[in-house]
């Protein structure tokens, strides 16, 4: 109750200081130190992964898929096999090569981690873009034209929604992994990273399209849309010129949260073998390899595992910060 009261008392004080919603949101975000810290962490992770070739060429002096299985390196002055005679790879060292140890094939884990991260982030980003574009188009069409357009789109979304996300991802991943996909003149090979990106992007469309549709439905009843209609604006202009800008805060928030979801789903699909296909590496495939040997070589699980959790955590917390900044009244509901 005090909230209501304060609201009315502050109204007169004009707490916004006349600032636009974007500036207001950024101001709120700036005050959220924790969210900002995790945002910076995410940027650092992205930069590190982008610099993977630099690290590989100038520090580790090896590639992500180069075997050193029968080589010997000096660790603390002692000669050590990269992969021991009992098939045990070396763990983390203070050596510029094999900083985070080697895997069963004698490959440098640190180099693979950075390259794998690049793959994971790329797939996550492309998938999120596909989700957002698909969801905005479908949600806006359904929400704005209503009638049979809405009915068809909503039913299709419901249908995709009916599948557990991971299961649908696995089904699509498996069926596309062998022969790839042809859409008209475009052909995507089965082993391409675009396949998991596309699969993940499609799987999550309903999760964003539904709330977008709901918001469009309420926006189209607002006065500014009526005004645009009276001014004789065309439907396209109303949708993209008037409605879309008002969706921006919702979309920004969903973008961040979807990015986290997509990175997790990529890892899960790759872990199961329905995502990134060998010889490409991602955090998911590294984990799939590592988990088989978690007792003997825990670093093969811990290294990509911690990288994955930190990245997703950073995106989630920053995304939540965005949500609080853009939507302090928690209007945007993330359905799962």
């Amino acid at each position, binding site marked *: 109750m*005090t909230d209501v*009261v304060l609201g009315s*008392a*502050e109204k*007169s*004080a004009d707490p916004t200081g006349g600032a636009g919603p974007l500036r207001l949101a950024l101001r709120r975000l700036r005050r959220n130190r924790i969210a900002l810290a995790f945002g910076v962490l995410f940027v650092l992770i992205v930069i590190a992964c982008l610099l993977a070739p630099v690290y590989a060429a100038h520090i580790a002096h090896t590639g992500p898929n180069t075997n050193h299985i029968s080589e010997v390196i000096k660790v603390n002055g002692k000669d050590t096999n990269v992969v021991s005679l009992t098939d045990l790879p070396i763990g983390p060292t203070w050596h510029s090569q094999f900083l985070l140890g080697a895997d069963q094939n004698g490959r440098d884990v640190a180099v693979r981690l950075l390259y794998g991260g690049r793959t994971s982030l790329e797939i996550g980003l492309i998938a999120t873009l596909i989700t957002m574009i698909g969801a905005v188009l479908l949600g806006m069409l359904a929400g704005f034209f209503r009638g049979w357009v809405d009915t068809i789109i909503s039913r299709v979304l419901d249908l995709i929604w009916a599948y557990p996300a991971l299961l649908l991802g696995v089904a699509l991943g498996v069926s596309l992994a062998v022969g790839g996909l042809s859409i008209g003149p475009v052909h995507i090979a089965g082993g391409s990273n675009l396949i998991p990106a596309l699969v993940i992007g499609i799987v999550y469309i309903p999760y964003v399209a539904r709330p977008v549709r709901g918001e469009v439905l309420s926006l189209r009843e607002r006065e500014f849309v009526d005004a645009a209609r009276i001014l004789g604006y065309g439907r396209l202009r109303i949708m993209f010129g008037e409605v879309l800008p008002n969706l921006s805060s919702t979309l920004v928030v969903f973008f961040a949260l979807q990015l986290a979801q997509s990175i997790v789903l990529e890892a899960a699909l790759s872990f199961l073998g329905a995502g990134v296909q060998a010889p490409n590496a991602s955090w998911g495939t590294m984990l799939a390899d590592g988990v088989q040997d978690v007792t003997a070589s825990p670093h093969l699980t811990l290294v990509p595992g911690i990288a994955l959790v930190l990245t997703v955590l950073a995106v989630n917390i920053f995304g939540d910060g965005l949500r609080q900044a853009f939507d302090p009244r928690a209007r945007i509901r993330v359905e799962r």
Partner: protein
Amino acid sequence: MSDIEVFQRAPITDEVLRVEHLKVSFRTERGVVQAVDDVSFRVGRGEVLAIVGESGSGKSVSAMTLMGLTRSPNATISGSARLADGTELVTASDRDLQRVRGSRVAMIFQDPMSALTPVYRVGDQIAEQIRAHEKVSKAAARARAVELLERVGIPRAAERSRAYPHQFSGGMRQRVMIAMALSCSPEILIADEPTTALDVTIQSQILAEIEDLRQETGVAVLLITHDLGVVAEVASRVVVMYAGRVVEECEVHEIFKDPLHPYTWGLLGSVPRIDKVRPDRLPTIQGSPPSLLRPPSGCHFKTRCPHRFAECDREPELRALEPNSVHRDRCHLSLQDKRALRIVDGAIGLPIPVEKELS
């Protein structure tokens, strides 16, 4: 000035509520908001006292504070609010307050559409309140709920008591709220904008209902409203609040016949009238209410008052301008000046603001 002096001229002898120097402030991110600033008033047995003001004037906060509904870690509340037997509401323990709520002081709210819990039958919600205060069986409490619903004019009460809130119209829900409020025969009914959310035709029915029940049960009513039409219809006395303070207090007929505070003139001038030729534009009070974070020094209304003069930087007292009068206001203008200045185009109001004066 002492407490006795404040009230000695009042005719009320049998009072059910005495509020003295009530102050409520909230700590917010942006500073301290003084929502209620030294408010005193009394409610006599069986009377209807209206508190009038804009949103943000502190009228709702005052009312909710009486019920302890503004208590929170960031609220500071001081002053006193005593019931007839001396029960102090401001400092009461949460437990004691809980016993008073609903049984001795009851409250109905502005929006009846959301004031009831959606998942329970209305009869059960009334019965719940009865059983919170009296040792009666569930069946007996339910039977009383039906009686109460009948009394507030709900047709087929026995059947309707088993319906859910969403199955009632707004007006009917407000009747349910009134039935619930009266279920334990309270001494005071606080009605916080009880008709604001309702259709105009329903409004007067609800007001008539409250008036009937007041006469029947002798309950005192503290009516919070911004609507002077509502005041004219049911109130016996009026307190006008502005920016957390009482700016005028009088019998109901005086507020229309002889309003003393410029803010009240503004309120009266803003009401469209059917008995006068309509001006091109309804006069309005220029500007907006001051920030309660940093209210202006002296008279809080001075920033919007067309009649301000040097004296207004000094804080005015709430005082009677004529000896032995219960009509009091908080303004430095003399009685003669007030009576001369308040007439604009033959009616009471503030002059229509000139655009360039708006800052």
